């Protein structure tokens, strides 16, 4: 199996992907992982999340940014707390954006080094807006500092 980057308690680890079946919505059975394409509407899934092993969002091209909004919605609005995996054209220089939108596992493109891609996960220390991992935009954090 191929290698994955996973965030476990906020720490990145490299591990082998397990054998969970990951299939599109029309083939999904309880216990499977769910594979979403960029056209899939995450708001009308109507799945029992408890039976979903993981959700994988496909990036057919790293330049297709729909997966970021899908991840945001799954995390912030639809209450998905399980594994959210980026698959497809997943590259080092986008990993930090994916992480901030709520992905916690990353199936880096097969021809790229996973160890190398890991360097892209941290990104920059400053994010102005809110994100899946920091729900308060910077201006609320700045204001919080001022009152100390």
């Amino acid at each position, binding site marked *: 199996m191929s290698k994955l980057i996973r965030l476990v308690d906020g720490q990145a680890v490299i591990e082998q992907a397990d054998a969970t079946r990951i299939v599109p919505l029309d083939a999904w059975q309880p216990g499977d992982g769910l594979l979403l394409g960029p056209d899939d509407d995450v708001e009308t899934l109507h799945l029992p999340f408890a039976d979903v092993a993981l959700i994988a969002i496909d990036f057919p091209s*790293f*330049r*297709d*940014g*729909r997966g*970021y*909004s*899908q991840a*945001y919605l799954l995390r912030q*609005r639809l209450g998905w707390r399980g594994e959210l995996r980026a698959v497809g054209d997943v*590259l080092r*220089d986008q990993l*930090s*954006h*994916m992480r*901030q*939108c709520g992905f916690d596992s990353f199936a880096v493109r097969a021809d790229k080094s996973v160890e190398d891609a890991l360097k892209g996960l941290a990104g*920059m*220390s*400053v*994010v*102005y*807006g*809110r*994100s899946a991992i920091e*729900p*308060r*935009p*910077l*201006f*609320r954090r*700045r*204001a919080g500092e*001022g009152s100390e």
Partner: protein
Amino acid sequence: MYQYDDYDQALVFERVEQFRDQVQRRVSGELSEEEFLPLRLQNGLYLQKHAYMLRVAIPYGTLSAAQLRCLAAIAREYDRGYGHFTTRQNIQFNWIELEQVPDILARLAEVQMHAIQTSGNCVRNITTEAFAGVAADELLDPRPLAEILRQWSTVNPEFLFLPRKFKIALCAAHEDRAAVQMHDIGLYLYRNDGGELLLRVMVGGGLGRTPILSQTIRDGLAWQHVLSYVEAILRVYNRHGRRDNKYKARIKILVKALGIEAFAAEVEREWQHIKDGPAELTEAEYQRVAAAFVLPGYEPLPAIDLDFGTQLANSKAFGQWTERNVRAHKVPGYAAVVLSTKPGAALPPGDVTAAQMDAVANWAEAFGFGEIRIAHEQNIVLPDVRKRDLYALWQAACEQGLGTANIGLLSDIIACPGGDYCSLANAKSIPVAQAIQAHFDNLDYLHDIGDLSLNISGCMNACGHHHIGNIGILGVDKNGSEWYQITLGGAQGQHAALGKVIGPSFAAEQVPDVVERIVNTFIDYREVQERFVDTVQRIGLEPFKERVYRAQELA
């Protein structure tokens, strides 16, 4: 001006090192050009015909003297001694080596500047008018919200790979000098009778291949909602905008396909989920940013300066310059001055040399409060000049080739870099602009013609805003040769309009003559002091077409 705090500064420094690493990986071959492309675009770096071009952000067109000196130093040390101001109030350097870009960005970061998101399919530089904070007809200062939007949109992880580029402009004056209706989102700010700051949100404007003026999606939006509402629009666009065809990927096409009501309903549905949440702007944040834009320490001055009156009476040239290049200021005794970057054949429109930049920085300190603005018409504005200093400034500006008294006149041409530099261009822009400027080099005659905007784009991407020029010129490719299509009647501002094509296109050498025939038609039909655009509106295109094409057959 807004000053970076530790967060803002850390972000630009980290971004430089991030890009330094990406450039190294590109040079080593670890990154393919396809993978590198969006990374360099989101750092302002294009590959042009001859070299890399670096587009540096000038947020809402505002620069300090120190920042302008840094741009001059970059022009001198890394380019060929000049830069080009763009219609998005940015500056471009045309002769850049890839390996030097991280060092240039580091120099910029030292003076609180960057090139982040000046290109790519993301939210671009936030723009507003060049007279923000000083215009006599201003309702309120748009810069605090412009800065707040700049921060919100900078490296916002969800919106870095949109279907296409995304442009936001703000205007907060009676006259719209920021062309808000030709933006993906236009925000018009005003206060209601109770003094509350409200926004009219317009969406779906843009030029390019399919020029469309924006439509109002919501009016009376309280300022606290600006970020959540913009976020709702962007999320709907990111999810539903077309990605199969780059020419149909702008938000204007989505708005047109759905219709403004259905699009607005979709945004409303999204917005209901996020409004009143953490994205809502706070009074504390607005005040923190607004504090950076408090009015400088203006001297109490009489509204009328007697020496200035005498100088006006004694010099016709100074009088012409004052009439065209000096704008009313909200503080008595002060004026805003436009320095023309359109001297004619001496330099292409928008091009400014390093020496000129240094001179402007010095004037900004000597005659103002150290601040400079870039107008979307590609000119430079000194926002706070005492009336008694206007004459000295004018003399200095003339010595530096920045004193041409032609703002708003036919020779104040907006032009993109065109086929001389740009790999997207179908045709050259600069030689056509210079030929027209050479043809109309009599300043008295230009003043008689009066307000007339002439905009040139070298391709239908429309960086030269040809659709909204009173006379628009578009470079087109016909079987490998360069031709120019002419439109009439375009306008920016509150009465924004898209120009209409007058007929078949022309060869480059015909263009000055065609413009002359158009102007002559205007002179013949003009009613007393009528503006060109009003005459076109009144009499329609026919008299112009007839003169241009009939004369062409006879010639």
